[in-house]
């Protein structure tokens, strides 16, 4: 008996059929994506998470943008941007920025690593249920791609006035965006199905 799928947008109930590579199952009534073909194995997922962690570290340890005027240099990355917003009660914006561009991606990478590491060992990780729910909850709040676009806008904006250069960090942010998109495509619902050993 095939499992049952329920459309998250209109509650129509379906019997799932096996999907082939490139297949996307759409709701007949409202066109919502019901399921995608999910080819990733635990190993490839784990490799992507490790890549994401490395890119995240590079993006936070190297300058994303820098300006050099007569030997005086200023640099910026996610943390410099957050710190520049820490002024009086404007700090709520600093908190918002730190949350969406640093904390959420870091937590997502860490949790996915935890889950996939145990899945690789064929075991159910401690706190599996709450972790999957947290991953689902945090999904809309990761703004790495918006930060990338913001950095590009800042370059164009300031290039008319000062000699601004993009650092290694901007490539790391771009790569991180791509890897997180690959991992995010496979929403937690798909991760439930890849490791039979961790299912209840």
């Amino acid at each position, binding site marked *: 008996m095939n499992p049952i799928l329920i459309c998250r947008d209109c*509650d129509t109930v379906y019997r799932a059929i096996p999907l082939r590579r490139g297949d996307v199952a759409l709701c007949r009534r409202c066109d919502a994506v019901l399921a995608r073909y999910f080819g990733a194995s635990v190993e490839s997922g784990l490799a992507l998470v490790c890549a994401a962690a490395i890119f995240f570290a590079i993006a936070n340890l190297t300058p994303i943008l820098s300006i050099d005027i007569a030997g005086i240099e200023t640099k910026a990355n996610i943390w410099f941007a957050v710190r520049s917003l820490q002024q009086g009660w404007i700090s709520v914006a600093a908190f918002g*920025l730190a949350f969406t561009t640093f904390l959420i991606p870091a937590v997502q990478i860490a949790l996915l690593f935890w889950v996939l590491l145990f899945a690789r060992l064929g075991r159910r990780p401690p706190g599996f249920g709450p972790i999957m729910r947290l991953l689902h909850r945090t999904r809309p709040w990761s703004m790495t791609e918006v930060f990338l676009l913001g950095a590009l806008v800042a370059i164009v904006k300031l290039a008319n006035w000062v000699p601004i250069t993009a650092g290694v960090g901007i490539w790391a942010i771009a790569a991180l965006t791509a890897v997180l998109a690959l991992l995010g495509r496979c929403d937690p619902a798909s991760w439930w199905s890849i490791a039979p050993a961790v299912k209840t």
Partner: protein
Amino acid sequence: MDRRCPRCQSRIEHRTPFSTEMTLAWLIAGIVFYIPANLLPVMHTSGLLGEEDSTILGGIFEFWRAGDWDIALLIFIASVAVPFTKFIAIGLLLFTVRRNSRWQQHQRTTLYRIVEFIGYWSMLDVIVVALTSALMQFQMLGTAEPRPGIAFFCAVVVVTMLSALSFDPRLIWDRRT
């Protein structure tokens, strides 16, 4: 009764409780925050050309006048078009759901998904202001500092996202008597 998913332990609800009420409350908060976000300056710059406070709309206008129409358009979309689209779209969804309307159910569901997708791009201006302030720290040539408008704008983004997330699209398809 408290029913939970046997696999992940999340609470199972027929419909998100108080969905329309929460959506409306966050929507009103978003519209209220949007006013100071546009009236107050978002950035203060000082340099050889003097001191200046700039607002979001003022910034877009400056780019447009300087010939950078593409950047002006991008910031206009992220800071003006997206929030307004969200206000109108969520307002429309709430109004039709409250009235139990069966009008264009398919298109309204698509509209909901668009609102969900475009939501976070409005954060763009907050990031641009933060990066500019971090970089422009030259005592001689010029400095840039954030101003309260940007905090209100950040609040608009967060609150309108919460509004969209509170909305249960399944309500569009319900036929209540």
